[in-house]
């Protein structure tokens, strides 16, 4: 087996594809690339199928050594990237020779980068996906949900060098807005909240808590009083915004539990989940109501033709 040898796994590097669908009724969550936008571009740059496996690099520190000749693409967060001794660009492809070292520094804007390889990463598939979900001990190189470790070999095929491609700057992720505006499709128990609770929710500038990960982002702000809200556990969609008893919203993300019993105001629009994936704890956000009509129309318009 050859491909890329992990010299240093960095903070937290995970194999991801589009995610694990069709097994939610067993309690198996979706997992999958957190920033599907940057992930999608990484595969498109390599001319890969849209579900090809990539490496999701959190914050940075990953160092790989190529064992074969191929082409890679890197998108997502602004991380200084070096191939051997040269600093190289993000949002484009790079031809790689056996022996080349690819080293990621630490993110200066955003926090998740995606590395795709021509032909996709080869890893065993479990429940139709190679996505790593640490909490469920599923996926990744060993199928046991482990992040990349020093000495691992991330397998791929060698591939002939082709013309370099890049993504026009206007399509790169945008970072560092002072307060990110996050569109939420209103739904679930939204109609059962009072006007006062809803106005407070949309008027608050929330701060992402340090206790946030791929499972969910906990938000800090003035608590919303939700006493007396009892309900039965029910299916949770990607991006659902729930209000537990302490009145602090939690956005449930790619590694979320599949069912839960807290009331929910709706779900974050997928294009803004990609935005959340690039926001570190401490960043601020504000919710904006979004209708299902607006959301579905925008999805149709943004779909690759």
């Amino acid at each position, binding site marked *: 087996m050859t491909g890329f040898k992990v010299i240093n796994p960095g903070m937290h590097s995970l194999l991801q594809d589009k995610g694990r*669908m*069709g*097994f*939610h*009724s*067993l*309690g*198996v969550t979706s997992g999958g690339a957190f920033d599907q936008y940057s992930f999608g571009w990484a595969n498109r740059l390599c001319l890969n199928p849209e579900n090809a496996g990539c490496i999701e690099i959190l914050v940075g520190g990953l160092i790989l050594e190529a064992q074969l000749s191929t082409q890679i693409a890197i998108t997502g967060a602004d991380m200084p990237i070096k191939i051997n001794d040269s600093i190289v660009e993000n949002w484009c492809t790079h031809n790689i020779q056996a022996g080349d070292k690819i080293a990621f520094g630490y993110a200066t804007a955003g926090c998740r980068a995606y590395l795709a390889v021509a032909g996709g990463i080869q890893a065993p598939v*479990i*429940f139709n996906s190679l996505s790593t979900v640490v909490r*469920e*001990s*599923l996926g990744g190189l060993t*199928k046991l949900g482990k992040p990349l470790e020093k000495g691992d070999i991330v397998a791929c095929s060698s591939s002939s060098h082709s013309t370099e491609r890049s993504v026009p700057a206007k399509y790169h992720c945008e970072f560092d807005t002072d307060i990110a505006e996050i569109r939420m*499709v*209103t*739904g*679930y128990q939204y109609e059962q909240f009072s006007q006062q609770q809803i106005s407070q929710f949309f008027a608050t500038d929330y701060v992402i808590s340090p206790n946030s990960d791929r499972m969910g982002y906990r938000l800090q702000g003035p608590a919303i009083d939700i006493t007396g809200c009892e309900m*039965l*556990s*029910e*299916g*949770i*969609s*990607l*991006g*659902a915004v729930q209000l537990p008893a302490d009145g602090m919203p939690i956005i449930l993300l790619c590694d979320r*539990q*599949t*069912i*839960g019993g807290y009331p*929910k105001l*709706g*779900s974050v*629009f*997928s294009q803004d989940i990609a935005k959340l994936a690039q926001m570190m704890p401490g960043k601020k956000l504000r919710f904006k109501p979004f209708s*299902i009509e607006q*959301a*579905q129309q925008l*999805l*149709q318009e943004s*779909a690759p033709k």
Partner: protein
Amino acid sequence: MSIGYPKVVIASENSTIVYFSERPCSQTSDQIAYTANVLKIRLGEELIDLIPSYHSLLVIYDPLKIGFQKIEQEIRDTINGWKANNQPQQSRTVELPVYYSPESGPDLQRIADHSGLSIDQVIELHQQTKYTVYAMGFAPGFAYLGEVDERIAMPRLATPRHNVPQGAVAIADRQTAIYPSQSPGGWNIVGLCPIRLFNAEKQPHTPMQVGDKIRFISIDRDEFIQLGGSDKKLTGAIT
């Protein structure tokens, strides 16, 4: 069907949640199972996933292939089909062996003290009910079963355990469940099941699914070991 139900509510840009009744009951479970099965066939590739639960069904679809109005219509037509037939679904009964004892069920005494019953009576009441699998979640293969006899209903532990072993059969309020893998947990443990309840590598991945009926069969220590239960789980594994 209760008044005002089914309710079809938007959950996200690509999912809709259907509420079948105010409270869960066996008719609701049958209806959810029927709707899930029929939607799989009707929608084909337009459907991405389904999450059945106590009184609801989350329908996740591909919004590039079908819009929210059309999906609501498909859901309503499907449920109307159930009304017309009004045939209860054939639910399976799955029997699962449980070794009930103070060594495998460290909270039996707590429940006995709380209820004023003997440990034997607690065990008897736990195994005489035929439970319904209302939902799966929390962890892969974790099935929420209901409802336990109210005499042995028991609140969760004030401080959850760090280590609940795989196979632990436990009670929280009127719910009961088996932990499919070792994990932290705050439910009251009454026994251990030697059968593996989640296997990612083998079909079927779990012996039960939402809508099934579960009957617990009491076994002794020797049978527990013979059926693959580990001695190790009985000594000091529950912390």
